[in-house]
């Protein structure tokens, strides 16, 4: 067990190192945009431009920059943003919680709703509920999340405003301006702003979960041990939750951890649409303004997240399913 863990951790670090190097190659070697272009004034002299480049550390030889870069990444400091000229870590420290708040809410909501609908549909195969679960599942495969969000925006924010003069949910930002100083009102305000992006994410994504859980449930309900349990006279309720649902928990928990990175990177567009001040919208803005310390930092965080989730999924599967103890691998 310990040996396996150590091996996994070493592999994770190697992957992380490769990602970081790739990151460096992309931005510091291949990048074509001029980071000084944003600040540059046409009246700047050559010397002034050189000074700016030196300040950004762009005149150092490549290997020096690489060492600096790797140190920055692994010590979680990330350097200084070209755009705001403040340390990236500083801005990250208030943006990351915003992303976590939005995605945490949305992910938990999606999973709960998806599992509920899936279990319900799976236990009543062929019923209306089942057809509904199938329908929303297929729909979730085809519809772009950002389109669902545009529809939400169009109706809850703009159409209602057009007809009644108020918005059910605000269209943009995370707090009203000016923000309230009363902490309770402030939190309510954030929750009000959070509702629309979170809800739309849930609506766009829960179908896939429902379909997945439904298929697992159907599989599980046709197993022999269910027949045995039923023959023993176990009540339908106990059968469903104690026997059938229990047995599909390992695959569900694995797929939850494995899907988190996709949710996080996909939610970039959500943040962009609702101008939510998280790391996704920051990433897009930074890409557009050639602010690559920020781009590097966010990409690195995403990579860390994916690796972490893969790692947890591996471990979780072993913990939840006694048949696959991690010590004996295949």
């Amino acid at each position: 067990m310990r040996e396996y863990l150590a091996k996994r951790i070493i592999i994770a670090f190697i992957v992380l190192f490769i990602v970081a190097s790739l990151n460096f190659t992309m931005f510091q070697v291949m990048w074509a945009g001029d980071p000084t272009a944003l600040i540059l004034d046409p009246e700047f002299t050559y010397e002034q431009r050189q000074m700016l480049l030196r300040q950004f550390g762009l005149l150092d030889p490549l290997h020096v920059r690489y060492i600096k870069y790797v140190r920055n990444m692994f010590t979680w400091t990330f350097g200084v943003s070209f755009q705001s000229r403040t340390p990236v870590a500083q801005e990250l420290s208030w943006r990351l919680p915003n992303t976590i708040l939005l995605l945490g809410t949305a992910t938990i909501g999606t999973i709960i709703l998806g599992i509920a609908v899936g279990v319900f549909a799976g236990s009543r195969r062929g019923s209306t509920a089942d057809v509904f679960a199938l329908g929303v599942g297929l729909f979730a495969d085809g519809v772009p999340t950002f389109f669902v969000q545009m529809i939400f925006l169009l109706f809850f924010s703009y159409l209602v405003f057009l007809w009644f003069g108020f918005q059910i949910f605000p269209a943009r930002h995370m707090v009203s301006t000016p923000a309230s100083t009363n902490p309770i009102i402030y939190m309510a305000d954030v929750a009000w702003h959070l509702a629309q992006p979170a809800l739309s994410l849930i609506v766009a994504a829960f179908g896939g979960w429902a379909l997945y859980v439904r298929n697992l449930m159907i599989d599980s309900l046709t197993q022999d041990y269910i027949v045995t349990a039923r023959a023993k006279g176990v009540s339908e309720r106990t059968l469903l939750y104690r026997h059938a649902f229990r047995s599909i928990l390992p695959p569900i928990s694995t797929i939850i951890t494995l899907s988190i990175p996709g949710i996080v990177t996909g939610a970039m567009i959500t943040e962009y649409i609702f101008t939510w001040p998280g790391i996704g919208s920051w990433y897009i803005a930074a890409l557009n303004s050639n602010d690559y310390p920020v781009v590097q930092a966010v990409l690195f965080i995403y990579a860390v997240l994916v690796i972490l989730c893969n790692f947890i999924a591996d471990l979780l599967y072993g913990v939840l399913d006694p048949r696959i103890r991690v010590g004996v691998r295949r």
Partner: protein
Amino acid sequence: MASLFSEEKRIVLLRRIRGFWEEFSHNRIGFVGLLLLLAFIGMAVFAPWLTPYDPIAAPRVADGFAMPGWMTIFPQYSDHPRTMEIFPYWEVGNASDFVEIHAGKEVECSFYMTGETETVEISLITAFNYPYSVPPNRFSFSFEWDVSNLTNVGYSSKMFLTAPNGTSTRVWREAYTDVARSLSVLVESSDYWLVKSLGYSDPKAINLAHLIFADPTQGEYRLKLQASFRPEVGAQIAEAEVSLHAFRIFIPGRVHGILGADFAGSDVFSQLIYGSRISLIIGLMAAGIATSIGILVGLVSGYLGGAVDETLMRLVDILLCLPGLPLLLTLVKLFGKNVFFVVIFIALFGWLGLSRTIRSQVLSLRETAFVECAIASGASRAYIMMKHLLPNIVPIALASLVLSVPGGILAEASLSFLGFGDPRVPTWGKMLNYAFGHGAFEEFAWWWALPPGIAITLVCLAFVFMGFAIDEIVNPRLRRRR
């Protein structure tokens, strides 16, 4: 072909395809998907015949945010104006002995005077009928005004627009001058300086079109072009040539076409139709490339095993750890916003899962008797992979190919929506991007914001349905219990 396939093999292949089609056509959901897909392919192929407007040049054909044409069935919109484009026929209003006028669509006037010096005024008149009770939001006149051959004479000109209620507005004026020139004139009702010259102190608050097309809006609107020639005192000969060409009256409609107009007044329907081309091409190409790579890697990795297998599978592991969409955005930013690169990059992230599936399939196929027979009879590795393993993984690959098309289409749509698409091609993602960024929400232009999203959803669903059906046919475990 005959050399590639023997007669027997062709018959077997044909029979397999026919059997597959037999099952597929009886699968209701798959059939619906196929019909949907055929509809979109038809749209893509016949795009130029379905719509007269070119979505790339995007000519202005209506007012910004014009509603769909069929909205006029609702009473509150029933009398909204449609686009009017008129090339008027000019008639002589005020004639003069000194001026020879050829009136018509193109007007030529030649002024000639000897001995005398008196100011000569001529005028040209045309009229058009405005049949709607709702005023347009703007109007424009454009024409070529050409004065040449000026000898000892100066001229000035003005144009008036007279509404049915008798109010007359001077929409154009050229001050007295004795310089020959040729002008391309564009008179826009929203022009700040035009409104200012009419004596309004705050032109931004004034909509000239609403002022002119006031009650009663219906009726005959008359345009009058006046020109006056003033010869120099004491000149023996005074002459001038004046011509008016390509006069166009344009009143952009507030309802237009099948799906209205976008913020700039170009046709939404044509953008939607042409968007199907790029989406299908990108989706199919990305899926095709991804599936090919997946098959190749899975086949090689599974059959050869050993160090090759280890290397390839670790590579897959590492690639799976890369964050998809953010990296895609970065790559597009690095290599340029080009459809070709977008396809390649989408494909680069699309083959990972398939290669694992194929590998596991090949691992079990490798142990089968027919492969062992082939090895025993001295077949080369490449021969076994191509002739024995590949045909057996085609069904899985086919299902995967169809099921991975939506991923490609959605990825491209996401890129375009975020503004990282190719600016030169009309795509649904780009339409959504424009709708989102140029006020479709504020104006509640649902006819602009909703159709591209619905189209993306339907195309993806077509492939999802077909993929489900194919999966059910080729994957015996999933076969429906009857």
